């Protein structure tokens, strides 16, 4: 599907979605609350079939956080980027690990690095950081750590 066709189809599925073009793929902005149902539709819909979540990450924009989900269809070979803006003080979003299993590890990484809480995640613990790092989120822009210098 081309970006234009995708845009029409996705508006049908979720009328509140907004779009942003310019990059390689179509960017879809959605409300965080709409994510779990939208994710299931993206995966199961006949003409979309986004079965492969190849990148899940978060970007700290200082005023808010943005969750970024890169999706591709292994059968139809088209891709889309789903984005959801989160409140920086209390970031919460539903997990998508029941739709794409790979999200389980990726969400744990985002949880420890950005402090995003994934609701109904099966096992939300620290993955890479050692015990005791809960609440300190190294990938946030305002993170200061004079002992372990990670900024060069």
């Amino acid at each position: 599907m081309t970006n234009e066709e995708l845009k029409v189809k996705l508006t049908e599925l979720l009328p509140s979605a907004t779009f942003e073009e310019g990059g390689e793929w179509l960017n879809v902005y959605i409300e965080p609350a709409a994510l779990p149902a939208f994710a299931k539709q993206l995966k199961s819909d006949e003409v979309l079939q986004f079965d492969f979540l190849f990148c899940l990450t978060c970007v700290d924009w200082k005023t808010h956080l943005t969750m970024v989900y890169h999706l591709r269809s292994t059968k139809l070979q088209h891709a889309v980027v789903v984005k959801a803006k989160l409140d920086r003080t209390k970031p919460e979003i539903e997990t998508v690990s029941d739709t794409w299993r790979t999200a389980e590890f990726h969400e744990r990484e985002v949880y420890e690095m950005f402090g995003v809480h994934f609701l109904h995640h099966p096992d939300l613990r620290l993955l890479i950081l050692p015990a005791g790092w809960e609440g300190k989120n190294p990938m946030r822009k305002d993170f200061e750590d004079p002992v372990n210098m990670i900024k060069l």
Partner: protein
Amino acid sequence: MYRETEIIKDAPQFGEPGFGDLVINVGPQHPATHGVLHLIITLNGETIKDIKPNLGYIHRSIEKMCESLTYRQFIYVTSRMDYLSAHINNHACALVVEKGLQVEVPERAQVIRVLFDELTRIASHELWWGAMAMDLGAFTPFFHSFRERETINVIMEETCGARLTMNYYVPGGVMWDLHPDFQKRVKDFITLYKKKIHEYDELVTGNIIFQNRMKGIGYISPEDVISYGCTGPVARGSGVHSDIRKVSPYSIYSKLDFDEVLETGGDSFARYVVRIKEMHQSIKIIEQLIDNIPEGDFQAKTKAVLKLPKGEYYQSVETARGELGVYIVSEGGTTPYRIKFRSPGFSNLSALNHMIKGGKIGDLIAAMGTLDLVIPDIDR
């Protein structure tokens, strides 16, 4: 986590769920985990009930470091991620910067890059083959594979000046031209490889003990492969079409004649066969290019200070382990605002528990060997 031997105070009694369970730590210093991977394994007898990987022993926060490095500098940090595919990591970063700057890479540089990528892929698979056989108790294959790998390292050393973290690619091309002996050395390597490769099959592939330990072990279905985000030989061992060189070709791969290796077994043996066949395909690519390296510049002219226009860029390449994605968010400055490396090992590891649950602990080593985990690639 389980820092000391855990004494279970309220141990389940006979008949209760969890009776007879034993939690053991494999790693972080264990020869079979190939690096500092820590697995917390719940066993019942010899049967694996659950595996929880505990990562981060070699986490260097490369993504955060890259936020304060320029677009010329950050490439070199990525050699330290998947150190066995150092050239291919660098390739991904160079491509994403070139995509942002819209730089046309000279054909000579593109051919040189693909040649080095494929040599890297062979070197990586050689090391995997030796190390995996060693995990299963065969020590000799390690020496056989290192005999061939050493000749590749010599080729790399001559042109790049390094044997492991090469740092040869720059945005716009490669750092300097090929060594005058390059073509001769590569041809010598191809001759050596073709003379010796049958030994691999004679030593290991056809061995009945080896086959018994590999077939039917660590099975993963094509649906689960996609759901867990597995890529590379792990996905192709289950018959999932996932080679980035074919799915979304970069550089000159669309002009080259090679096959995507697909096996349908889905078990450890299928993944093993995929990697062995991939080495043959890499040789096929090198043979097509080695006599046809075009003359010309090895580097495009770029500005001294690179600034990526505001926006988002994504580029994925096929490393020896699978799909490596580089996601850059640029604010128009000289350094990336946010950078994310989607590493193949990270997703492949997440499927380990699913693959091996219910199997025996001996099978864990066989299954993990064919995942070809490189821990710095997972931790970043």
